[in-house]
């Protein structure tokens, strides 16, 4: 197991390095093609040359390689790697450290992901499990129909309907009934509130989780069905074990492997949904920060945030691989 983990960690570092290098090449090319990102600092105003020069120097964009199309700008890349190694992730165009931005934004996104993952697992395991156990019956068809319905409702529609139709009257009612700082009033607040981060994230998280749960329901159903028909389950039944014992110890555990893998993959997909959710519910999170940084051509923030996200993804994948190996001993010996 130790060697397996070491190997995966080293592969993770290599992936991260490649991601950073690719990102660097892309942003360098973008700067070389589109011209000076320091211009973005000034928005609508035309800066005086002295101001432009000052800003270029401040953000390390004065290296001549940025003016030569096709030059990979290895110098600034090595410099950046050195800075990152020392924990310096640079500053935004307005001089705010990227680490500071991330430390405010990341906890909100992580909270959102916690709620989303719980929702996935709760909905996926429950409905998928029921559908598998009652294969071909009305509840199976109902659940499969529901999963298609969920797929047909994109997250922004769910959020729009919730925010403009349900949240205002619900939040007014809860305030009048329970008081303005009560849990129900906070749950139905139309927007995120940093003072009540958990409470105001639950509903958006559940909606985002719900929107992504259809694939989970089908995956759990398929995985459990396969296991129900497996030899070891038949053996377990023939030994006279109770149906409950069989399904908990032999079916659920064995069918968990693809589900855990899917959590890792869908996690990265959820980030795309998070950009929309964060924007609509006014959550200051990683998706929104990245979105705005790209719009503002804020190079340091884009590179810093994407690097951190890549690192998180690599770590999540690693954890998934380890859990996978723990669940199925065959894997670590391959």
């Amino acid at each position, binding site marked *: 197991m130790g060697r397996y983990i070491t190997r995966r960690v080293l592969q993770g570092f290599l992936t991260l390095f490649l991601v950073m290098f690719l990102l660097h090449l892309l942003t360098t090319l973008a700067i070389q093609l589109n*011209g*000076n990102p320091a*211009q973005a*600092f000034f928005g*609508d*105003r*035309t*800066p*005086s*040359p*002295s*101001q*432009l*020069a*000052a*800003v270029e120097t*401040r953000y390390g964009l004065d290296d001549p390689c940025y*003016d030569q199309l096709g030059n990979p700008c290895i110098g600034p890349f090595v410099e950046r790697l050195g800075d990152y190694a020392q924990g310096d992730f640079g500053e*935004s*165009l*307005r*001089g*705010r450290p990227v680490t*500071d*931005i991330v430390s*405010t*934004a990341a906890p909100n996104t992580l909270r959102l992901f916690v709620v989303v993952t719980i929702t996935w697992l*709760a909905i996926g395991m429950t409905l998928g499990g029921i559908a598998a156990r009652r294969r071909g019956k009305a509840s199976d068809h109902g659940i499969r129909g529901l999963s298609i319905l969920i797929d047909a409702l994109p997250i922004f529609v769910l959020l729009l309907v919730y*925010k*403009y139709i349900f*949240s*205002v009257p619900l*939040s*007014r009612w809860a*305030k009048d009934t329970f008081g*303005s*700082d*009560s*849990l129900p009033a*906070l749950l139905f*607040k*139309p*927007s995120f*509130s*940093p*003072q*009540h*981060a*958990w*409470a105001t994230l*639950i509903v958006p998280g559940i909606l985002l989780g719900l929107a992504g749960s259809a694939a989970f329901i089908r995956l759990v159903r398929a995985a459990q069905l396969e296991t129900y028909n497996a030899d070891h389950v038949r053996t377990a039944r023939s030994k006279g074990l109770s149906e409950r014992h069989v399904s*908990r110890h032999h079916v659920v555990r064995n069918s968990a492997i693809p589900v855990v893998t899917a959590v890792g993959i869908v996690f990265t997909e959820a980030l795309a949904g998070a950009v929309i959710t*964060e*924007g*609509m519910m*006014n959550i*200051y999170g990683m998706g*929104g*920060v990245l979105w*705005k940084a790209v719009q503002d051509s804020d190079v340091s923030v884009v590179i810093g945030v994407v690097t951190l996200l890549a690192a998180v993804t690599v770590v999540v994948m690693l954890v998934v691989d380890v859990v996978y190996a723990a669940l199925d001993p065959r894997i670590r010996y391959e």
Partner: protein
Amino acid sequence: MKTARLAAGLTALALVVTGCGGGDESEGDGDATVKLTLSQDVDTLLPMDSNVSDNISVLDVVYDGLVRYDPKTTKPYNYVAEDISSSDNTVWTIKIKDGLTFQNDEPVDAEAFARAWNYAAYGPNAMGNNYFFERVAGYDEMQGEYEEDDEGNVTVTTEPTAKELSGVKVVDPQTLEVTLNGPFAGFATMLGYTGFFPIAQECLDDIEACSTQPIGNGPFEIEEWDQGQSLTANKWDDYSLEETPDFSRIEWTEYSGDSDWADFEAGDIDASFPPPAEWQAAVSDPDLSSRMVEGPGAALSYVGFPMYLGKPFDDVEFRKAISMAIDRDTIIEKVVPGRFVAADSWVVPDGVPGGVAGTCEFCTFDPDAAKAALAKAGGWPKDKKLIIHLGEDPESEAIFKAVGDSIQLNLGIPYELDPTPDYFDRRSARDFTGIMRANWFPDYPLNENYLAPVYASGDPKEGNTNFGYYNADFEALIQEGDAAPDLETAVTKYQEAEKVLASDMASAPVAFSKNVMFYSDRLDNVVLDPFSGEVKLRLLQVN
């Protein structure tokens, strides 16, 4: 067993949530707290660098300027200044009231203004309000010299030779003497703008800290700025001047692109504006519309012509034709209801001194006259498309698509929109082949600000950079206004200059912005700032 464990987990989560939610009960509605919103774009609270309506409106209660503006007429009156005078409009003597301090007890004196202005004017500091000091003597020496290649890359050829404005002299602690490059009657009018606020020495010593935690001299102190999420300010107890509101705390929530309207409807914030889709519902709701306040805005959207290209853009009849072909009222009603009013002048009427309606004779929709004018100008080449250049902004794209439709319908000229991210670069490089969407947001309340910075150049050969416009009479009238003995005479001269623009149809005004705000039933005396469109916090009352 499994379900029981899950239930226990959810209960634990619920407890965490409740524990987190039960906190600050004291901030209830009875408290005199105003809850407002800011856009997430606010990235500094440094006066020298603050130039968007959000941070300007925050700093309006955190800092006091030399002058303040009357909320109705926008006329300036002395506030921190005891007296501002000049005999020749070039050398200005500013007397500062005695005994005023910053929130850290440092004195608000001539030095406090001089250090702020020097910092802002020094090019390498890259402050957003740098260009406001162009008129002050010694500005050029603080910028240095640079070479700019075709791709906009800049190399320093000469470092700036000065770090201080030679035109700003501290005579004694209460007296500041400012020498301008030339006469300008409106100088005192500029002094209430955020870029001219004083700063404390402690702020200058640690600019980074000061940009998030400013040390003001106004009635409110910033308590905490959780950048990207919220900003809070409390009343400063030792405030000694008279203009201070009677509430004790302001809480701003920062919003990203999406609207805060649902939060306003839920009663979580005190003032908001509906998104276009909700506009009709809001104005037809008797309760909501009784809590709506409107006021003229200051921003002008207009059509600019690339006169430097020659025919047909340099023909005044062609410009008249385009202007008269635009059905301004219908466009606003259909595309951006409630947000704009049709413009028929270059200076916002009643918004700033000297602004009157109706100076643009050819801004009235008249398809027949437009066709006649186009024929007089020699018509439009068959099958050639009229390009409309504009920046990448959904709202102005919608408006200018309608403008293009209007031109196509009434003059038969096919058009094509060219939204570009490099709008400003391309415009100043004269890279446009057709008409352009332009927007002017004034920096200080004086009609001159709508005229000289946009159309004057002093360059008879090339004309001004953006449009290639030049008229000697216009330039002369602006100069006469700048040198006028008093502001009123100056304003009249500038008005005459606007008439020159009108006879040249130097551009076609399309719409002025309109400020609208809905407010909660807790608020009273809601007045909007014509410039920022935000609620005037010092006048606001909380029930």
